[in-house]
């Protein structure tokens, strides 16, 4: 009797799923990626319910009179669940076995968690299995890459692309491709793909010792996995931001692979706590440089102290401003200028004392430009725009302009049918990363010049992806970025163009 009720209930649910749409057509385009993902989810749900009904019917028909009607149904369900949920087999069996091609074929049957990018998810399953093999197989990688070209690229496909690059030893490409997932709209990016990408990036950053980068990346992620939460907490503690020992221990207890991460836990726990800074960064620029008897000695001492720091450690804008202020005082000092002029007269050189001071200033500006680049995203906090720091911005601008022009020409060259959207996307994310890093310390006028250099090439590439390759998701991401930049540099015409494209694409 109970089973009869279960069967009837299942049939009713199936009918309900069939007749009622899960989302309103006002909020969701039925032909769009979200609509398609919802339809796939509906189909899997209906298949699961139908399976339960079929198992119930079979057990009733064959064994219903035995007096133990529940057990046969549960056994049948256990056997049949992988049919509607292949990810179970792929994750628990095929990936650990390293069966890349089989993992791809089974995952291609669809279902959770790849509703938003079924083909990319299947290739990613194959790549994850391939990474378990003891040797890198170029033939297998080529086969997997060819599967990616068979359909539109989504978030899972991009993760597969990045991991294939890492597997082949090209870790720089892997980094930029996996980090580019933030730009892809969520409708075509399965959350699991995002989590896998973040896991890889975190492991890579920890291996390189790029702890600052790691902390920033984990902090930006709204849904960190237990693993990334553990590594992020340990990194924060090792960098001395005051994360408590208990927090790290809790993260470790909640994370998988506890035995393997014991070394990290130990390194984080034994790190001594760092006290509160005696001087706040905002006060740093106002302080004298060690109260040197001559301004030039103060500037040199500060310069040497900063030069002794490793180039991988981020520099605070306040430190750059303090150094620039010290040099402004030193280079304007009459004692230094008089001394240089006197030496120039003594040696009877053609260049005047002022010209020689200008040469020192150029060298200082070059070093400050390097420090500005080292500030990364924090360079937006540079407020001073006078003296040697202004010159440093100009040096930085001249250097980045050349690089950005060269990189954007590469994006233009990727509109080759043989190269495919994947190559175009890799070229684009490289340009984007270089552009973002380059323009942070620039003023609006300089930023507009750099933007105009990349805009045309990227616009053509986005149009090619959209019109000829039907890669709406990738083109949309490019247009969104160009729209944000057009608004920032106040390019009204370009902003209107990209706003239209973005609205059409939604």
């Amino acid at each position, binding site marked *: 009797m109970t089973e009869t009720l279960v069967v009837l209930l299942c049939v009713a649910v199936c009918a309900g799923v069939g007749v009622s749409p899960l989302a309103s057509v006002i909020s969701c385009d039925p032909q769009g990626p979200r609509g398609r993902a919802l339809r796939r989810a509906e189909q899997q749900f209906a298949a699961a319910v139908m399976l339960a009904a079929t198992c119930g019917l079979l057990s009733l028909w064959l064994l219903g009179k035995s007096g133990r009607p529940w057990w046969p149904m549960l056994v049948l369900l256990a056997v049949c669940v992988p049919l509607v949920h292949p990810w179970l087999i792929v994750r628990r069996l095929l990936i650990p076995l390293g069966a890349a091609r089989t993992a791809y074929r089974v995952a291609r049957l669809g279902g959770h968690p790849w509703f938003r990018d079924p083909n990319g998810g299947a290739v990613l399953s194959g790549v994850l299995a391939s990474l378990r093999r003891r040797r890198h197989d170029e033939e297998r990688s080529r086969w997997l890459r060819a599967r990616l070209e068979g359909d539109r690229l989504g978030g899972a496909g991009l993760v597969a692309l990045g991991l294939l690059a890492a597997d082949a030893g090209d870790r720089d490409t892997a980094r930029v491709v996996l980090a580019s997932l933030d730009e892809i709209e969520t409708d075509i990016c399965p959350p699991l793909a995002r989590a896998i990408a973040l896991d890889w990036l975190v492991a890579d950053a920890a291996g390189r010792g790029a702890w600052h980068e790691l902390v920033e990346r984990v902090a930006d992620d709204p849904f960190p996995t237990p693993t990334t939460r553990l590594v992020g907490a340990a990194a924060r503690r090792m960098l001395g931001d005051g994360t408590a020992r208990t927090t790290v221990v809790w993260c470790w207890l909640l994370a998988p692979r506890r035995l*393997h991460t014991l070394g990290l836990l130990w390194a984080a726990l034994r790190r001594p706590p760092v006290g509160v800074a005696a001087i706040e960064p905002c006060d740093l620029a106002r302080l004298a440089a060690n109260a040197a008897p001559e301004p030039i000695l103060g500037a*040199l001492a500060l310069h040497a102290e900063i030069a002794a720091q490793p180039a991988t*450690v981020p520099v605070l804008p306040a430190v750059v401003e303090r150094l620039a202020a010290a040099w402004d005082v030193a280079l304007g000092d009459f004692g230094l200028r008089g001394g240089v002029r006197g030496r120039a007269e003594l040696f009877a050189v053609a260049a005047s004392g002022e010209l020689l001071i200008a040469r020192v200033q150029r060298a200082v500006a070059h070093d400050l430009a390097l420090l500005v680049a080292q500030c990364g995203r924090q360079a937006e906090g540079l407020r001073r725009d006078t003296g040697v720091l202004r010159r440093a911005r100009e040096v930085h601008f001249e250097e980045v302009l050349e690089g950005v022009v060269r990189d954007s020409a590469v994006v233009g060259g990727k509109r080759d049918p043989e190269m495919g959207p994947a190559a175009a996307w890799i070229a684009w994310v490289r340009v984007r990363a270089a552009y973002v890093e380059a323009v942070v310390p620039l003023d609006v006028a300089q930023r507009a010049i750099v933007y105009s250099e990349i805009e045309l090439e990227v616009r053509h590439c986005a149009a090619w992806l959209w019109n000829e390759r039907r890669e709406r998701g990738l083109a949309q991401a490019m247009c969104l970025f160009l729209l944000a930049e057009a608004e920032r540099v106040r390019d009204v015409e370009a902003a209107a163009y990209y706003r239209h494209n973005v609205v059409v694409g939604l």
Partner: protein
Amino acid sequence: MAQRFTKDPFYVLDVPRTATKPELEAVAASLLDALAQGVRGAARYLTPLGERRRDAGSVNEATHALREADTRIVHEVWAGLPVRSRAIEPAPAPAPWPGGERALGWRHR
């Protein structure tokens, strides 16, 4: 950036900023001799960022740079700091985690 101090010709040749041209040439020649004979201590010099290694190439480069008077005056400005035998220690940074990828399940080879 550190090379402004570590590669400054005055530090490489270990001469004062007031040294005359003949003095510079004499010091360079004696350094080259000492390096060729492998004299103990000749291969090291002090800078404001600590000790560095010198070779015949760096000595020749430094001598050449100081022969041009205008370049020399610019180097005189940069060579204003006293030298020190101990390097400036940057703030201790956490070491990389080389086994991280394996520990987190990303490396099986």
